[in-house]
């Protein structure tokens, strides 16, 4: 079999270009295998992140032939011998080669008020939550923080909106907290304000690239938009909130 041609971005914040490598094919090879082959045999300075190689850690995100994907889950034989181009994800500042500065995401996560049970729950040792209570949250908890959804979010990618919108990853994170049966906080003020949920206009690009198949828009963002609208534009709910204090049960 002929060598597989890869065009890999090499460079840093100052600039760079695609460089060609011919990698011997191997049955079942994924793009990450090829990057490791390049490091071990051609150029050990090629920078890329990876950890688990089993699509569980979300470290090896890249843009492969223009499409944001995990390198460990992208089979080389899917490209039928055509050259494969590997670039870093575009939305975050480039550090080197395939590695970008994703620290903004960690700062955002810190701004989200953490899980907060009631004082009564905090005191009791064992909680009862039925399968029905928790199962819809499992979808959100599957997120591996690969940030591919952030990469394709047009607010972040085209409009450089990191100062206005937290992005799909953190809508999922907030949804998991808001819909947790034992959480007592309401984060709709944050969503309407700094979280910037209004900027999302439901193009669903984030859902398309999610390697965990999380229905980010349908199951997280739209329900959060509804909650935010309720809290900010429904006068009765605003009153209830002003005098009630506790999070009321929601339909979605």
């Amino acid at each position, binding site marked *: 079999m002929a060598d597989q041609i890869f065009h890999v971005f090499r460079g*840093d914040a100052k600039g760079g270009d695609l460089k060609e490598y011919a990698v011997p094919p*191997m*049955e*079942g*090879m*994924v793009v990450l*295998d090829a990057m490791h082959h390049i*490091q*071990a*045999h051609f150029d*050990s*300075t*090629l*920078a*890329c*992140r*990876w*950890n*688990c*190689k*089993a*699509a*569980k*850690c*979300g*470290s090896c995100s890249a843009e492969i032939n223009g499409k944001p994907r995990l390198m460990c*889950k992208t*089979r080389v034989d899917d490209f039928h011998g055509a050259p494969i181009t590997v670039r870093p994800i575009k939305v975050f500042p480039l*550090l*080197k*080669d395939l*590695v970008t500065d*994703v*620290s903004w995401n*960690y700062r955002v*996560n*810190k701004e989200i008020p*953490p*899980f907060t*049970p009631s004082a009564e*729950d*905090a005191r009791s*040792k*064992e*909680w*009862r*939550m*039925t*399968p029905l*209570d*928790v199962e819809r*949250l*499992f979808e959100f*908890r*599957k997120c*591996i*923080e690969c940030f591919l959804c952030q990469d394709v979010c047009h607010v972040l990618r085209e409009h450089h909106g990191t100062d206005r919108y937290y992005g799909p990853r953190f809508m999922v994170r907030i949804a998991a*907290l808001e819909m*947790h049966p034992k*959480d007592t906080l309401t984060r709709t003020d944050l969503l309407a304000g700094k979280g910037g949920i209004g900027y999302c206009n439901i193009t669903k690009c984030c859902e398309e690239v999610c390697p965990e198949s999380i229905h980010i828009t349908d199951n997280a963002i739209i329900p959060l938009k509804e909650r935010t609208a309720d809290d900010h534009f429904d006068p009765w709910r605003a009153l209830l909130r002003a005098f009630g204090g506790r999070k009321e049960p929601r339909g979605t």
Partner: protein
Amino acid sequence: MADWYDERQYDVLIVGAGGAGLRAAIAAADGGVSVGLVCKSLLGKAHTVMAEGGIAAALGNVDSQDNWEVHFGDTMRGGQMINDYRMVEFFAKEAPERVYELEHWGGLFDRTPDGRILQRPFGAHTYRRLCHVGDRTGLEMIRTLQDKAIHCGIDVHMEVTLTRLLKDGDRIAGAFGYVRETGRFVVFRAKAVVLATGGWGKLYKVTSNSWECTGDGCAMAYEAGAELMDMEMVQFHPTGMVWPPGVKGILVTEAVRGEGGILRNSEGERFMERYDPVKKDLSSRDVVARSIYKEVQAGRGTPHGGAWLEITHLDAEAIKRKLPSMWEQFHKLADIDITKSPMEVAPTIHYVMGGVRVEAGTGQSTVPGLFAAGEVAAGLHGANRLGGNSLSDLIVFGKRAGEHAAQYVKGVSGMPRVDDAQADEERTLLRRPFEGDGSENPYAVHEGLQAIMAEHAGIARTGEGLQQGLDKLLALQARAERLHVGGSMLFNPGWHECRDVRFMLTLAEAIFRCAIERRESRGSHWRLDFPDQNADWGQKNMIAVKENGRMAVRTRPVPQMPPELAKLVQGQTVVKSVR
């Protein structure tokens, strides 16, 4: 301080941000001291994230007869009695509390119909004991701890590699290393250091471990004078993927067998009925791994040298619900639908039972101010770890190490002095691959190491083979003095590999030296020339320590259980090893 490094200062420095590191950081911060956390990867990517099956804790939610005493007995028997019984006692008693705590911090588990935490069966656990979330329990645990830790007032330093512990006289003064992104050197001054750096599966080629598992913490502890214990005990998980080659070693969770999966040889025989008629496919990992190995040796292996693992007799939807990652993994990476076809599996390096010897209750090593928790610490699992006992190990002993480190620093007056000469010596070592006249490629040396380990320190060992392996290893260590890489210090994986390889070569030496000495078969250590367990060796732990610049190996008596604990282990015999 010198101008060629940056300096940070904390009361307690935690190295590693997997389950043990994060839990230790939370505990130390609770103790009211300043805490810095350093990790080689981004936060939330540590190897813990890959744990699939569950957290073993005797909640008794599904099988009400389960309790800490049964968990204690199972763990001691699983470890074939060379475990530190005091650690096992703390562990079995405290694991349930630590699991409930995760839930109080927002973690979510699969549930029983009446709303309690659901538990599943796993190898060599008497009852259904593993709290789980489908097959992504590690992700749930790490995310829960991560989100708790970032609100605890600790500083997290991501993508920083520490390469040397600094000492002020006998006691710990901090650690030295570099920022991966820039290559800039950094000194962390600290009164106490907690190592939570995980294992060293990357010594082997066929491994379930990520790139980070190069044993930095254990090797740094050894260099700093700490005792290493039971280094010969390296666990082969029975079921790693074997095909296609790119995925070789990736783990197939024990939960597949927990949920009813059956192992068969090429003749369709359920061979575990012969090796362990009682527990069958859910026997302990050492027994199942050896059984697969024996089947392959006897010519009854699968096309790629393993066994078939079948779960097709279960309902397809149930499989996708209970084992979603496995379904996806085989579907995407091996073109196999596990609801319709069997999986091809073979033993893969998964875990190390050996590591830094620590005090049972505090996690303190033999070096004052140096603590260790999780996989890098030895003692809890003895000769073989039971599935699910790792995640509970992390949170039970992570908490204890963090707490005791905080307590320890309160008794330390003033920040220990950092000796710039130590940092300078390490800088010289780190820069040598750029500046020296060496010509060895670090990846080639790593491949050489993996070949030696596979050939001489694999699942079946002999004294002669181990000695040959050690000789080859010492020659390879000499080659590693002449590593060379190009490029700059900016995010340079080849350069990073140079230091990792040296750590791995040190630990490989400890594995060989301990394995040569232990002349018996016990747990994961299988000597073809000494195929039986030996009662004398059952009373000994192996110790490796640096003396006069060289590695010395000796034994240490296994702590003896008081009668009230000893009786918890009786009643069932220790599973006989497969000869």
